[in-house]
C-alpha cells in the first residue's frame, strides 16, 4: 500500500482539483501518448498547431496517474501555449516544469519527465505525420524525457511478462 508521505504543494493540489486544459481535443493537429497504465502513469497529449506560423495554439491532456501526473501534465499544457514548436522543444524541460509547479517530492520527478516526454513526442510526431523533413533544431536522438518515457514503457512490458496470465483457479 502506498505509504510514502507526499506533501504536495498548493499549486499541485490546485491543478489536481481544477486541472486546466483537460480533455480530448477533437481538432488536434497531433496526438501523442507517453507511459503505460501498468506503471500507473500514462498521458495523452493533444496539440493544436498553427501550421503557417509553426506555433502551438493550444494544448490539452488526459491523464491516468497520480495527482502529480495530473498537475504536471496540466501545467505543461499552459506553458506551451503560444510558443513556436522550436521554443517549446528547446525551453520546456522536466526541470523547468518541476520549478514552475513549485517543486515535487523526489519520487514524483518522473511525472514531470513523462509530461515533457509526451510533449516532445507530439512535436516530433508532427513532422513525421506531415512527412516533411525535420527542422535543424530537432535532434535525431531522443531527448532525456523521451528516453525516460521509453524506458518506462519497456519496464511495463517486462513487468507484464512476469505476471501470471491468470492465477490458477481453485
Amino acid at each position, binding site marked *: 500500500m502506498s505509504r510514502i508521505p507526499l506533501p504536495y504543494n498548493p499549486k499541485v493540489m490546485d491543478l489536481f482539483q481544477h486541472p486546466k486544459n483537460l480533455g*480530448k481535443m477533437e481538432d488536434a493537429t497531433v496526438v501523442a501518448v507517453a507511459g503505460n497504465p*501498468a506503471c500507473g502513469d500514462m498521458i495523452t497529449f493533444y496539440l493544436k498547431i498553427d501550421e503557417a506560423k509553426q506555433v502551438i495554439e493550444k494544448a490539452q491532456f488526459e491523464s491516468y496517474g497520480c495527482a502529480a*501526473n495530473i498537475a504536471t501534465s496540466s501545467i505543461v499544457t499552459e506553458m506551451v501555449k503560444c510558443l513556436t514548436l522550436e521554443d517549446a522543444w528547446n525551453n520546456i524541460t522536466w526541470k523547468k516544469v518541476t520549478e514552475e509547479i513549485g517543486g515535487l517530492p523526489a519520487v514524483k520527478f518522473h511525472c514531470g519527465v513523462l509530461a515533457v516526454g509526451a510533449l516532445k513526442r507530439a512535436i516530433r510526431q508532427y513532422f513525421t505525420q506531415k512527412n516533411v523533413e525535420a527542422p535543424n533544431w530537432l535532434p535525431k536522438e531522443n531527448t532525456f524525457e523521451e528516453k525516460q518515457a521509453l524506458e*518506462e514503457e519497456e519496464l511495463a512490458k517486462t513487468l507484464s511478462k512476469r505476471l501470471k496470465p491468470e492465477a490458477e483457479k481453485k
Partner: protein
Amino acid sequence: MVENVKELLKLHEGITHEVYLDNENSCIVPQQVVDAMLPYFNKTAYGNPTLTHKPGWEAFEVIMNSFQKISKYMGAKILEEITFTPSETEANNLAIMGSCFAQKSKGKKIVISEIEPINVLQVAEMMGKYGFSTTKIPVDHEGFINLEKLKEAVDKETILVSISAVNNELGTIQPIKEAVDIVKAQNPQALFHTDVSDAYGRIPLDVQNLKVDLATASSYKIQGPRGIGALYLRDGVNMERILEGQIGTQKLWPGIENTPLIVGFTKASELAFENFESNTTKLRMLRDKLVDGIFSELGDLRFNGPKGDKRSPDNANISILRAEGEALTIELSLKGIYVSSGSACSRRLLQPSHVLIAIGRIFEEAHGSILMKVTRSHTEEDIAYVLSVLPTAVNRIRGIVGSTGVH
C-alpha cells in the same frame, strides 16, 4: 515540506463528515480504550514490574492480568506462551528469526505463502543471509493457498512454515488447520507460524485448536493503540531471543514492559471479544452495505478476494478500473474519507501490491485498488456518507483519465 502539509490540511477545513476506513494502516483508538490506559502513565502501576516496590508490584499485577486475558483470547494453554512485542512487525521478526536460529541444526528451509505481509515476506527473504532458503506457496485467484503445493514444498529440511490466518489485504480466511495437518504429516518437527493480526477479534480463533506453534496478534488491528502486539509460542517449543537487554517478565523480549500499551491492547481485545457475535455481525453488515453500494453505483470494478464466509467480515478491497489509486485516495481525503491503495508510488519501484499481483490481477487493476476496513465503531450513517461521495470522486478521476490507456 511541512509548509505543504499545513496547506494540504487547510484544504480539508470544510469537511462535514469524516470516515476513517484505513484500518489496515492505523486506527482510531476508542475513548474507552484510551481511558483504560491513562491511569498507568502516572496514577498507578507506573513502576517496573520486576522491581521490589509498590508501583512495581502494581505493574506486575496489571501485566499478569493482561497476559491472562490475551492468552485466553488467543486460546493459549498457559500465559507464559504469550510475549508482548512492540507490534506485529516485531512479533513476526521474532517468530521467524528466533525459531529459525533455534532450529537451524534440523534444517534450513522456510516456507511461506506469496501473499504474506511484508514483515513476514522480507524477514524470510533476509534469512537468506544466514543460509536459510525460502519457498513461496502460490495462491489461487481469491488468495487461498495451494495445499498441494504446500505439501510438495515441505520436506525433512523444512523448519518453519508461516502463513497468515487471514490475509491482510484480501480478507481471505486460510484453511490453517488443514495446512498444519499437511505440514506436520510431511515433517512433524517443522514449526507452523500464523499471523492472526487480521483474524484476531474478527473470526473464531484458537491456537490450540489450530495446532499452530506460533501466532502473531496486533493491537491496532483491533482498535487498540499502536506500539504493541503479541506472539504466542506453544509451550515447549525452542526459541531464541533476537534482541538482548534487561529481561523482565518475558524471557523472549527484553526491556521494561510498557504497561499502558499492554492495558490498551487488552482493553481493545476485551471490547472485540466480549460481544464477539454481535460485533462481527455488525462488521459484516456494514462491509456488505459498503461493497454492495459501491457496486450498484459504479461499473468497471473488480472485487478482490473471496466473498461470503471465507472472507474476514471487516475487509473490502475493490479495484476501480480507469482510475489511479493515489489520485483516488487524495480525492477521497478532501471529502473526509480515508482509504489506502495498492497503487505503486515511486518510479524505480513500479510495484503495486504483491498480493493483488499474486491473485492474478493485472497492474492496472492493482494501481486502481482501494482497501477499506470497517470497525464496530462505524455507523450506517458513515457508510451512507461514503456511498454519497465515493462515486462522484471516482467519476471525477475517471474524467481526467478520459480515453487515456483505453485506445
